[in-house]
């Protein structure tokens, strides 16, 4: 939590469940960030509406989340609850069918329309609110922040290709190999702001 009166310029939110394998990668990366002035860090299992008030007080936001890696095997990509023990994850099966798309990691900016009014659909192009009390999409959360609190931060997200969502705290080997690359991007995002301060 920030000290009274201080406003962090940058906020990093790690999203996921650290007890469900690769799903916890965002949480794990955020939790591992060292404290520094001007940076606030949150670990969330999901994006919830009350975060909107906090977003309105920061300039920049970085979301870290797991992303189900697409493969050429359609069935595999449709189930977010696969675990290492299931046959799809046996080495023989993977050799035969698993051909992950090895794209370089990159920060993606989440844009919002200029003047969409108060219609959520105008903001997001869809209705990401399912009526529950949690589980907002990043776009919906930003819309909430903008509409109710007058501003939303410039936002990037880093989606990390995940495979295994079973019980456990470990990461799949393929995701673990991407950690240095992910950390470089996160460090660069943080440093970009610090560099701006240094030149101000």
């Amino acid at each position, binding site marked *: *939590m920030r*000290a*009274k009166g201080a406003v962090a310029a940058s906020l990093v939110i790690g999203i996921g469940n650290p007890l469900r394998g690769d799903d916890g990668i965002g949480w794990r990366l955020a939790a591992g960030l060292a404290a520094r002035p001007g940076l606030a860090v949150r670990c969330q299992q999901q994006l919830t*509406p009350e975060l909107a008030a906090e977003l309105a007080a920061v300039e920049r936001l970085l979301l870290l989340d797991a992303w189900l890696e697409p493969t050429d095997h359609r069935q595999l990509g449709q189930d977010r609850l696969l675990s290492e023990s299931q046959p799809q994850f046996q080495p023989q099966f993977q050799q035969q069918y698993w051909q992950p798309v090895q794209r370089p990691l990159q920060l993606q900016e989440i844009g919002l329309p200029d003047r969409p009014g108060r219609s959520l659909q105008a903001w997001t192009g869809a209705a990401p*609110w399912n009526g529950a009390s949690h589980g907002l999409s990043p776009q919906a959360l930003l819309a909430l922040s903008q509409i*109710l609190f007058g501003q939303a931060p410039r936002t990037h997200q880093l989606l990390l290709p995940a495979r295994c969502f079973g019980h456990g705290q470990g990461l799949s080997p393929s995701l673990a190999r991407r950690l240095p690359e992910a950390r470089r991007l996160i460090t660069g995002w943080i440093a970009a702001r610090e560099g701006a301060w240094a030149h101000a």
Partner: protein
Amino acid sequence: MSRTVIIDPVTRIEGHAKISLHLDGEGRLAGARFHVVEYRGFEKFCEGHPFTEMAGITARICGICPVSHLLAAAKTGDKLLGLTIPPAAQKLRRLLNLAQICQSHALSFFHLSSPDFLLGWECEPARRNLFGLMAADPDLARAGIRLRQFGQQILELLGGRKIHAAWAVPGGVRSPLSDGAKAWILERLPEARATARLALDRFKPLLAGPLQREQQLFGQFPSLFLGLVGVDGEWDCIDGQLRLIASDGSVLADHLNEDEYASFLAEAVEDWTYLKFPYYKPLGPQAGMYRVGPLARLNVCERIGTPWADAELAELRAHHGRVVTSSFAYHQARLVEIVACLEAIEQLVVDPDLQDRRVRLRGSLQCQEAVGVSEAPRGTLFHHYQVDDNGLITRVNLIIATGQNNLAMNRTVLQIAREFIPGPLAAGAEIGEALLNRVEAGIRCYDPCLSCSTHAAGQMPLRLQLVAADGQLLAERSRG
């Protein structure tokens, strides 16, 4: 030919459930069932763990009210260790629970239920949610978000994180209130109070207007009410003793000892739901139906003990009677309890005991069985542990607030359905949106938290089906 109407799943509740309405051979409503369709099994897999881990484990039952399990587990652990915790720890736990009730009630009222009241029952479902409220009444939506943030921030200030903070432990708590936390709470309290006032001002006028019918329709029936009260019968949320009253206000049982809960509570089971049906044992499952939660707590107490909350309680009782029997009044009760929590936090946070560093005692196992009880936002919560000589759990029984309202929820669904299906339903008849909305909203009065017995996962589209006894689909309606 008998038929069944199914609403699956129910939306804007915490968890996953469906509702089925059963018609007899002539198409008349014969029964209603609120099904909890997922199983979690915490009671079983806690076996073998040290009792000292129970606070951390059971808090994971739910992301909405983890504090409730944390406190009940810590209290049970206190008893296993034979400890009377330091006054500072007792007050800090109370502060935690007040903040928890405040944030949970804010979630229920502002995020989940107020769209029904303020946008209207016939409003398009896709708009009848927090975002619809945001468009219609941004001040209220913004204030509601900030109020929940206030409660959650107190949880984080005390426990280090908003959810699943293992801060309350057998023997006390891990740390006192810091100067910074105290200052933050005091700074934000006026805004929180203003939000409670705004919500009451928006909601109460509706009771004499567009919400009159719902007050008569949503769970308006006599039942028993159970909750904790303080030594002088005042409202309480963590200490005190159990009191059970009837709808006429008579006290059926007072100073009930939670250690002997099995002598006055029984849990019935049905093969169509994972949620049990607790009831007051001496009266049996029909007459022994009781309700817990904010409305029950207000019914069983003599007074709240703080000026604004007592004034709101008096107004509630003036409108409904000394014992409020309509479950629709749960919504107003939540607002009254938000006021009670804010006033209590205001009194408590300046108590110097909260910054006393003596907040935890340590001890060794003194007995092999204990029951802890606390008031969760949704009602009374029991944790019952049996342990071996090494303190490893051999048996667990958790009696969850939502379960204790199960009989009343089923009866509420039936009452609403009877209003909307007064006579025989012709084969192939359309299932009206009005029925769909009201049945769901009737359940939502109780703010059921099915995560305590299920897992809240996935999207929650709504499907209602009319099915013949032979399985033939006669009519269907989908949402989402």
